[in-house]
């Protein structure tokens, strides 16, 4: 509570000021009622010191709650007790009989302020707790249990609940905003680092790969390894981490596909982010992974594959083409019939769930091309 409370101070400030204003207005109201009813009180002389305490406490809390560090249990409990005390003093000052006749208490309306303060400081649970305590005291003091008395208490309870909920909502959105800002800063920092790394490590790796390309034995092997690492590192520094908050948050499909780039896999995409709900992007990326996995499994090692991402207003098209041996059309159909085309089925299933279509074209010695088309409309 204290941690998130500290973060949401910016939002709580106006609420605390509103409570202070409410308290002052209520004080004026109480003062007017006392002046008008004082002759009917059993001990009218005691009404003035109680009113003075009410005024003093109003001034004190206005200043005390202005300091965020003091919006904590000691002051909140004191606030509740002092207000309850003022309310309870009505029994002696006004007397049982006038109260039962419906004369207002010495803290009428003013007693709601600490309840709202509790709701703002501690959320709806604290608010409801304070409302129950204050409402109970009010009913006992007034000692007549008609519809109007109960309505007052119920309204106070509702107000406390609503304010408590609102404050929690405001805190949550503040924290979310904070997290989004932090994430953006981290992404920018990562991009800056990526540019730095580019100038040192990537260049050396690419150089080693190139100079050693023609050599035999261990040197050639080293060059090949350097080339692989260069591709892996390039994929890493260009693809930022896409940590989606939930299924509907948008992520960049290109970023998700970035890690699949390698010495044999080329990824072509627009410069701008291809924004899709994270669930949709995740499914497409999984389908692409399945297609690439199929290339790695069934084609010769080193077979090149090309992924193309196209972002159109109505749909997103992703094609995966390989330069492998390809499959004869009749074999493709035959395999599908016998349920042996695991990868195709997994891709079709995923894309069909998104309302999209899959086209697989292949010919012997011409490689295979898998084209996924996902409409944006179905994505919503």
């Amino acid at each position, binding site marked *: 509570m204290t941690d998130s409370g500290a973060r949401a101070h910016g939002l709580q400030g106006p609420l605390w000021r509103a409570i202070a204003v409410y308290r002052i207005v209520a004080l004026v109201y109480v003062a007017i009622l006392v002046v008008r009813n004082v002759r009917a009180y059993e001990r009218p002389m005691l009404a003035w010191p109680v009113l003075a305490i009410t005024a003093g406490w109003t001034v004190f809390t206005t200043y005390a709650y202005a300091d965020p560090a003091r919006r904590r249990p000691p002051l909140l409990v004191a606030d509740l007790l002092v207000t309850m005390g003022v309310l309870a003093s009505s029994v002696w000052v006004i007397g049982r009989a006038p109260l039962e006749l419906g004369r207002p208490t010495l803290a009428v309306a003013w007693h709601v302020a600490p309840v709202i303060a509790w709701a703002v400081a501690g959320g709806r649970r604290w608010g409801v707790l304070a409302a129950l305590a204050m409402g109970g005291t009010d009913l006992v003091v007034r000692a007549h249990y008609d519809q109007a008395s109960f309505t007052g208490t119920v309204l106070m309870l509702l107000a406390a609940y609503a304010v408590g909920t609102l404050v929690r909502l405001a805190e949550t959105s503040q924290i979310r905003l904070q997290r989004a800002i932090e994430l953006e800063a981290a992404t920018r920092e990562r991009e800056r680092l990526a540019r730095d790394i580019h100038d040192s490590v990537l260049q050396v790796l*690419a*150089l080693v790969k190139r100079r050693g390309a023609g050599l035999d034995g261990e040197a050639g092997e080293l060059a090949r390894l350097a*080339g692989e690492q260069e591709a892996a590192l390039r994929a890493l520094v260009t693809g930022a981490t896409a940590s989606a908050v939930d299924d509907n948050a948008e992520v960049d499909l290109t970023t998700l596909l970035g890690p699949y780039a390698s010495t044999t896999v*080329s990824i072509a*995409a*627009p*410069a701008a982010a291809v924004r899709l709900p994270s669930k949709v992007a995740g499914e497409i990326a999984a389908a692409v992974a399945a297609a690439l996995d199929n290339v790695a499994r069934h084609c010769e090692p080193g077979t090149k594959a090309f992924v193309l991402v196209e972002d159109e207003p109505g749909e997103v098209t992703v094609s995966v083409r390989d330069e492998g041996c390809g499959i004869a059309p009749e074999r493709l159909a035959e395999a599908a019939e016998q349920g042996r085309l695991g990868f195709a089925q997994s891709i079709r299933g995923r894309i069909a769930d998104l309302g999209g279509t899959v086209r697989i074209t292949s010919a012997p010695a011409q490689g295979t091309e898998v084209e996924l088309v996902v409409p944006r409309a179905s994505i919503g």
Partner: protein
Amino acid sequence: MNAVTTPGKQIRVMVVDDHPMWREGVCRDLAAAGYDVAAATGEGRQAVRIAAAARPDVVVLDLQLPDISGVEVIQGLLEAVPGVRVLMLSASGEQQSVLDAVKAGASGYLLKSAGLSEFLDAVARTAAGDTVFTPGLAGLVLGEFRRLAVEPPVADGTTPRLTERETEVLRLVAKGLSYRQIAERLVLSHRTVQNHVQNTLGKLQLHNRVELTRYAIEQGLE
């Protein structure tokens, strides 16, 4: 190397790369392949300064230089040596910067991870006036035309558009097909495929110049 076999005149190449070992390696490879390495430097500003004197036919340019951006180098080079052809190299394949450089007037792009023969072939094609596209660059250019198409049209209606054929060719380049494979699949000549690719780049560069001029007029610079 077809470009080098042209008798009489050697092709002059300038190498701009801030990594000394890489720069020396590239110079050595180019010299071995028969090119005249006219100049080599590691800084963008210096490259623009010495280009006028070195008068290269082709500049092999690292997109990421320590002093000025790739776009600024390309603009400076084109001003200093009109008609010079720029082949960009980049180690990290940063997308937006590659696209910006192409729009600024570069005529080819290659990742540094490309093999030696691929690199020499790219230099030869650049020298011959061809466009060197990687599948990645084709994807970027396709994306850029689609972005322009959905943007609100500018007043004088200069939004560049690809013909259906050009889109078809560019998609196949992005899917990794060679010009020869594309020519076979679409039943076109190799030269026609090359022309289509070159046209897409030309449209993008022309649009970029129009945009820059408009911006300059709006800002009261002219």
